[in-house]
């Protein structure tokens, strides 16, 4: 049948014109929905930027977690060698660095001062192994395992701290997600209302279109497109604001954070990804919002 041929360019042009005309016709509702999308996406954008950077911090911290195994000061070289072998062979261990008791003392002297030089005569410390886990989440298990070996005096790692950080991250992520969902819903609601007004305003036109045999998609497409415009228009300001601010923030702070554990994600491709995501969300809200109205008020 004729109607199933690929949509003609002329038809597409007509749909585009119609959808843009409606935006102007309902200018106040257009403004309201675009603002809602703008505010929503601004918050989403800021949230994403913060979350992604915090995630990266968490990753860095995670990778930085190590287990410090201190040997019995009395253990002799042979015993230490056996222990080292045992530690290296513990499942899940990726890396072991051996520091002798003298090296450990030097480190202490460096941090606490020359008074500790006294101890050079008879070093009370044991040797130390710095152990890294392949999977940072296994740190606790590995530490426990190593603690059971002979000649270990103490096994320490950042107990609890990492977990706490993760919990805080998770909680803020959930709160942020909840907030964003509420905002997304509001934006969609406003868009669907705008589209509804358009549908009502064009009620007679739609009625005639249906009577003379316009296909359902022909009737629907202008409204879906209108939703797309609302979403795209709403995402322009957030994309610009977030890009500029992040570039600014990055160029200001990056040099100062050179040797810190916390690093800002570099601007490319991060900003592009964030912008892509914002645009996608804008279009998604728009399409979904208009879809709800079209389904409800346009029984085609």
């Amino acid at each position: 049948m004729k109607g199933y041929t690929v949509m003609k360019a002329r038809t597409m042009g007509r749909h585009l014109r119609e959808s843009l005309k409606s935006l102007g016709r309902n200018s106040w509702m257009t403004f309201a929905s675009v603002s809602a999308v703008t505010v929503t996406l601004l918050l989403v954008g800021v949230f994403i930027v913060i979350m992604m950077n915090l995630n990266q911090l968490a990753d860095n911290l995670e990778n930085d977690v190590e287990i410090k195994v201190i040997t019995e000061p009395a253990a002799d070289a042979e015993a230490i060698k056996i222990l080292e072998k045992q530690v290296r062979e513990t499942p899940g261990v990726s890396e072991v660095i051996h520091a002798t008791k003298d090296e450990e003392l030097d480190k202490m002297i460096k941090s606490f001062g020359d008074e500790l030089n006294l101890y050079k005569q008879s070093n009370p410390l044991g040797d130390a192994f710095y152990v890294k886990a392949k999977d940072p989440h296994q740190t606790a298990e590995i530490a426990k395992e190593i603690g059971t070996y002979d000649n270990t005096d103490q096994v320490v790692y950042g107990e609890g701290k990492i977990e706490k950080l993760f919990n805080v991250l998770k909680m803020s992520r959930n709160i942020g997600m909840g907030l964003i969902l509420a905002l997304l819903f509001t934006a969609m609601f406003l868009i669907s209302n705008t589209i509804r007004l358009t549908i009502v305003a064009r009620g007679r036109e739609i009625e005639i279109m249906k009577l003379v045999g316009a296909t359902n998609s022909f009737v629907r497409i202008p409204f879906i497109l209108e939703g797309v415009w609302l979403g795209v228009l709403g995402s322009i300001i957030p994309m610009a604001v977030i890009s500029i601010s992040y570039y600014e923030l990055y160029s200001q702070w990056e040099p100062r954070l050179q040797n810190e554990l916390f690093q800002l994600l570099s601007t490319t491709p991060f900003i592009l990804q964030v912008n892509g995501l914002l645009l996608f969300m804008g279009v998604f809200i728009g399409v979904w919002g208009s879809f709800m109205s079209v389904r409800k008020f346009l029984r085609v």
Partner: protein
Amino acid sequence: MIVMKDVYKKYPNGVVAANGINVEIGRGEFVYVVGPSGAGKSTFIKMMYREEAPTKGDIFINGINLATLRNKRVPYLRRQIGVVFQDFKLLPKLNVYENVAFALEVIEESPKQIRKKVNDVLALVGLTQKARMFPNELSGGEQQRVSIARSIVNVPKVVIADEPTGNLDPETSWEIMKIFEQINARGTTIVMATHNKEIVNTIRHRVIVVDGGMITRDEYEGVYGYES
């Protein structure tokens, strides 16, 4: 052309608007549908262009069974049917030419075809001179002619008219009837619901009386008078 077999229609609110309708309307026929208000006349008409689907029974238009027609296919059915209403249903912001062309644009006809068809049909209803005028600049009769032009511009096999003279004075009604006669003379089937006794009794055609959701009388060269 149009066949209804044991058609039964019950609305969700419980009203039974068609209670076993059987009718056959041949190609090129001109049929008046008369009957008191609320007797099922509108439903009878609406089921023909699938504005309403029957609850039970079959309706064939040009061989297509509307009872089993998928919603997706309804637009293609409508392209074979012209519909005219009492209130014209014109778009106030479009002029005469555009109102008629609209019907072809939305079914994605080519611009060349649209120009040709619209000019032809405007000549047929005698509105060539008024093609650039807007509906609010026209008389009721002229507006109805625009609406008729729109209904036949795609050369449908059937034209369904629901009280097309309901809003018009007697003289204008005759003009409109003349146009319907012309369309019918070209071989188009016409089904017209009307309350206009004078027209039915003067321009004689088949008369179907619908009352209580049933066809109570069906006469060729019939007269109005369903009261009797």
